[in-house]
């Protein structure tokens, strides 16, 4: 039995021609064309480059291309520069006939005998084979404990603490100042006393007037005066009582 066939396969296949990418055209083309247009051509107008003609004497010589021997150098000892000047000769006459009596041999011997022996460098060994290391930087020897200022607060910290404290104080002062400026005015004790005394004095004056009034209030005028005085006294009494009752008084501004 043949494969399954489908009628849609009869439809002519649409030929899909892959369109070629466009031919490459250099972007410098217009420039080239422009240059082509100009009649002057650099190489043609300038002629060949002017160069010195090579000399006929420098022809190629025999064996010149073979590797030659290195150039000769005078012999030198490697320690030539470190060498001390040679010992004076036996026959050499000292300068101006000066001569020292110093016995260098004994002098040197004495110097060495009396010299304080050098302390050996401290080392430690960490393996069986005896690998040596310096003890000093290893941390095994107590270095810092030996220091004179060991255990003290370093001066820079102290200085810093002081600075901090000072700054804090300054800040607090500034804040309180600021608060004070914004706050209500506080009536001081003296002012309070003086106000109180003034009020009492006023009251006594009013009271004196009151006592000096006639007993019978028969006219409207008298009545009005009496009422006014009573009003004033009452007001003063109320003020005095308020001020006496409160120790601290703020004045709203």
């Amino acid at each position: 039995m043949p494969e399954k066939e489908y009628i849609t396969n009869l439809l002519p296949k649409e030929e899909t021609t892959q369109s070629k990418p466009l031919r490459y055209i250099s972007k410098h083309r217009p420039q080239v064309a422009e240059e082509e247009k100009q009649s002057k051509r650099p190489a043609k107008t300038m002629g060949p480059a002017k160069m010195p003609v090579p000399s006929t004497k420098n022809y190629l010589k025999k064996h010149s291309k073979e590797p030659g021997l290195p150039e000769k150098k005078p012999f030198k000892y490697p320690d030539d520069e470190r060498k001390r000047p040679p010992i004076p000769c036996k026959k050499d006459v000292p300068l101006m006939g000066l001569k020292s009596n110093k016995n260098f041999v004994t002098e040197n011997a004495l110097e060495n005998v009396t010299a304080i022996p050098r302390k050996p460098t401290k080392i430690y060994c960490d393996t069986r084979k005896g690998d040596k290391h310096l003890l000093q930087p290893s941390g095994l020897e107590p270095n810092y404990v030996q220091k004179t200022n060991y255990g003290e607060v370093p001066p820079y910290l102290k200085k810093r603490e002081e600075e901090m404290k000072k700054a804090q104080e300054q800040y607090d002062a500034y804040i309180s100042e600021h608060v004070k400026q914004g706050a209500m005015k506080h009536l001081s004790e003296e002012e309070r006393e003086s106000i109180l005394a003034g009020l009492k004095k006023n009251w006594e004056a009013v009271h004196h007037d009151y006592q000096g009034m006639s007993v019978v209030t028969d006219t409207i005028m008298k009545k009005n005066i009496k009422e006014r005085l009573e009003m004033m006294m009452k007001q003063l009494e109320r003020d005095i009582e308020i001020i006496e009752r409160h120790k601290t008084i703020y004045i709203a501004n």
Partner: protein
Amino acid sequence: MSERKSHEFPQLKLESIIGFNGRSPSGLIVHPDREHIVYHLGYVVIVENINTQEQTLLSGHHNDVSCLTVSKSGRYLASGQIIYMGFKADIIVWNYETKDIHCRFTLHKVKVQALDISPNDKYLLSLGGQDDGSVVLWNISAKEAICGSPAQAVTAGVTLCGKFANTSDLLFMTGGEYCLRIWDVDLKNRKVRPTEVNLGPYKRIVQCIAVEEDDSYFYCGTTTGDILCVTMKTSTLNVIGPQKKMFSRGVQSLILVKTGGHLELLVGAGDGTVAIVKDKSTKFQRTKNSHKLKGSIMSLSLRGAGHQFFVGTDTSNMYRFNYMEFTCKLLNTGHSSAVNDIIFPAGVPKLFLTCGAEQIRVWHTPSQKELLRIVVNNMTCNALDIAKDGSVIVSAWNDGRIRGYYPESGKIMYQIENAHNRGVTSIAFMSDAKRIVSGGGEGQVRVWEVSTGYTHKKDVIKTGLVESMKEHKGCVTQIKVFPTDQHCVSVSTDGTCIIWNLEKFQRDAVLFANTLFQCACIHPDCCQILTSGTDRNVAYWEVVDGLQIRSLEGAKSGSINALDISADGKYFITGGDDHLLKMWNYDEGNVIFVGIGHGGSIKRVKISPDQKFIISVGEDGAILHWAYPIKSES
């Protein structure tokens, strides 16, 4: 009457026609402008551009066109027709430039046999058919007859062909059964005077005449298969040949070609041979150039001087030949007889299938070219269907067989022998393509099953009968299966339409009408069906109870053979013997578009799956491609 009325409606736009009536002698002519070919199909004459394939239709005849000619200058076309016994057949002279009717001549009875236009476009020569037997000369510019005369002696048979001389308007030759005449025209006395050509001992039936350029000789092709060369002056036979290897089934068409100074004859024979023969000095000896085509060569026509020529065969194939290389190319092909059915593969508007006598063809819609042809000799395919996935084509044949084909190779997949004893007339696939419902000429509706089996170590396809349902008394003309596969509807010429239950294989409903039902279609919502038949009515039926809802008069004359409904169910299309394609509104039941263009009865019509075009097929073998007039909403 209906034709006159149909002009009032908006017309469907005809996009193209596939088809060609190759059976008439010289029915395919290359126009002298070398750009167009002229041929006829059914009632219409078609002028087609060779390169662009653009077609112009010249319609004016009332029946089949029988003969065609083009004047030498190309100014005029003339076409003659056949008509029923007792009526007079028209000759129409067309103005080629404007493509309209120049004049209409009506004189010949029943059939116009042959036409020719004189070299200076002055006169038209026409020959009547068997029932007429006269030759008439017409003045084209004056649009009148000049004179007429009996075309042949009483003892002779039909005159088949006539030809004007090349140098004179007043000299022509006619030839036919045992009769070959040269005619002189006497314009003054309005007479034509014949001179019999003396053929001596030879008795020949002349089928075609070709005249030499200087009118010294003319050549006649005969049914015997030889060519006669006659001297014009003396009216005597000069040469007859070829003596050996005569053309079998006769020389049907003949053309003279001058190549390189010497004359050659291009011969088209009845057995399909196109050959070049040498001139009379060698007694028409055959050359190597010979090509055998299918069918008989009915027309040969040179393009220009003759570097190319066109060949038309009676199997409706058009070929283009290159004269020098003698190679041919199939240019155009069509059904040569009635197209019985057309279908679209589901959802593929680019392809459609048609069937007719001996053939099933698959067409490519955009190019109008044939993609596949399945041929069964001597049988007629009445109906066909394709599986929903497009994997099988099943066809109903008049030899009582159902044949299934592979759709690509066209090879046979299975064949059900003796499916119906009076020929299978209708067929339909169920949606899974495993079952086929077929109807036969005896009136039975049968359900077949196709399955794959395994025998002799091979996969084979087995077919078997599932059920046979015997209710119809007449030929089952169409079967349509409902999309649900549970029901199908069959219509019959006994005046019944039955809705079958395909699960119980019983009749669900039967509809009676006093008509020979020709077609049915199911509305897409499956609630209603449409039927129509010879009573010219389109009937709407309810599926559930089988009651008729509505009946519309579909045509004023002639039965309605074709129905198809659009996928949205809003419109349907009818076509019938009145040659008109009508588009209807389904709900309103009124005609909204009319398509005029068919030159014969419409057999089937289909709307493309994408609702972009309509294809209708006719009894004359034409396949017409119409634009769908309503833009689909999607």
